[in-house]
């Protein structure tokens, strides 16, 4: 186990039922690090993320979330926005308020402090103006800001984001990533970002995990995302 790591995966097997996507994942994420999780479609990026989050059961091995100040780290999750059904007439504010469910028990009502905190989170992601609007009517980039505010409103130690820049234009991508960079720096969060966008990961992440045909490459951006290494990895992808 690496000193000061927030997450350690030991011989973790990831998949669905009998289908093993990643048979043996071993890695550690340092506290406060910003890691990009790259790989081709179907390489197991989202599956790995969901297994860490507890949404998918691991097929084998162990996931160790190391305590922070004596307590289990809180995970903030930002799902792919397409996974959320637009039929729900939820305002941006109501979406962010959902994060309070982790702290406010069943049968208890969300108090004014939590509401104020949700507003703060919206402000921090530059989404104040979207709080009163219907979430389903927001643009891709606006939705991502609201979802990021929701992840932030869980008061996380470790933020896990599933393709936050998928399907949005370059301008919105940059805006979303700048907000994430700012949050990472201000709150000293550990960030694990699933993306297929190599440029974005190279620009914002410090560490990279590259998944390819069940294998896991983990290293610093400077080492793993050099032009030669990328060419080598991409040629493997397309072979």
């Amino acid at each position, binding site marked *: 186990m690496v000193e000061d790591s927030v997450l350690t995966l030991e011989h973790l097997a990831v998949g669905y039922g009998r289908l093993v996507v990643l048979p043996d994942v071993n890695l550690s994420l340092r506290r406060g690090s910003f890691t990009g999780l790259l790989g081709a479609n179907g390489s197991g990026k989202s599956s790995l993320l969901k297994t860490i*989050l507890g949404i998918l059961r691991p097929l084998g091995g162990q996931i160790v979330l190391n305590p922070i100040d004596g307590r289990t780290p809180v995970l903030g*999750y930002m799902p792919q926005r397409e996974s959320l059904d637009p039929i729900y007439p939820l305002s941006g504010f*109501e979406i962010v308020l959902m994060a309070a*469910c982790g702290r406010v028990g069943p049968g208890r009502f969300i108090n004014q402090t939590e509401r104020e905190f949700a507003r703060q989170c919206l402000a921090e992601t530059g989404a104040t103006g979207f709080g009163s609007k219907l979430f389903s009517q927001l643009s891709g980039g606006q939705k991502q800001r609201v979802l990021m505010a929701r992840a932030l409103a869980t008061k996380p130690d470790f933020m896990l984001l599933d393709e936050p820049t998928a399907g949005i234009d370059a301008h919105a991508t940059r805006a979303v990533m700048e907000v994430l960079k700012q949050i990472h720096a201000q709150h000293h969060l550990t960030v694990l970002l699933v993306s297929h966008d190599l440029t974005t990961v190279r620009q914002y992440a410090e560490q990279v995990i590259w998944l390819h045909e069940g294998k896991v490459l983990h290293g610093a951006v400077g080492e793993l995302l050099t032009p030669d290494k990328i060419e080598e990895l991409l040629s493997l992808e397309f072979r």
Partner: protein
Amino acid sequence: MDTLREILGPDFLLRNSIYISLLVGLVCPLVGVYLTLRRLIFMGVALPQVSSCGIAFAFSLQAWGVIPHMHEHEHSLAFIGSTLFTLPTILLLSLLMRRGGGSVEARLGTVYVLAGAWSILLLVTNPLGEHGLLDMLKGEIISVSNADLRRTLVTFGVVVLVFFLFLKEFLLVSFDREMAITLKKNVIFWDALLFLVIGLTISMAVLSVGPLVAFGFLLIPPLIAHLFARNMLQFALIASGIGGVSAFVGFCLAYRWDYPVGPTDVALLGLIYFLSFIGKKLWLVVRKTAPEQA
């Protein structure tokens, strides 16, 4: 106006009927909100039919001599039969839906026709209960005893209380199950509780007003509310409000013109939906063209 004065008068004979209509009108749309949002509208068609089948089965047990006749407790017997059929069906259907695979519509369609067919078969083979039972299944809202009203009031009171207390949990597991898991919520428990409450409401509604009217109040008010709601609270309140108002106005119209109450309620809901839909479309057109003219 005279009709209204008569209905609101203290000596109105069908007082309990109007109360029960109002209860169904106010509470069924709250349940329908979740059926609509979880895209389980077809379940709203199939389950009342299953509930009816449960009622018919419970009365058949009497006819077959399996259980003794209990005239004074017929309502309770019907409620037990309805609930025992509805709850396992809703839990099984939701489990199959969650596991994926197969066609959801085909499953619900099959349940609907089988439950419908069995209800009729059980009715025609029951020499004792055909008349009263047929009235019950048609949604005859005329003869409602104080005990029936109390039972409905208590059941719906519990339903509203559960929705009120656990609104945020029901909403979270319905809207974003994955997020709920990351927040350490027991999603299976919350799903089961939600479906239990839905099943209980449908059982009681079918018993009170019949499957057609129950489905009408489950489906149409949430569809109307969805046109206008800007958040979840508005959605629930508008749906429930429309249900309540329609139930009252429908009852008044049916009483005035001597129509059956249930179908009048549903026809009125259909008219409100049509007018709301047209109104919303017109408003959108006006809003779109207004800045251009300016």
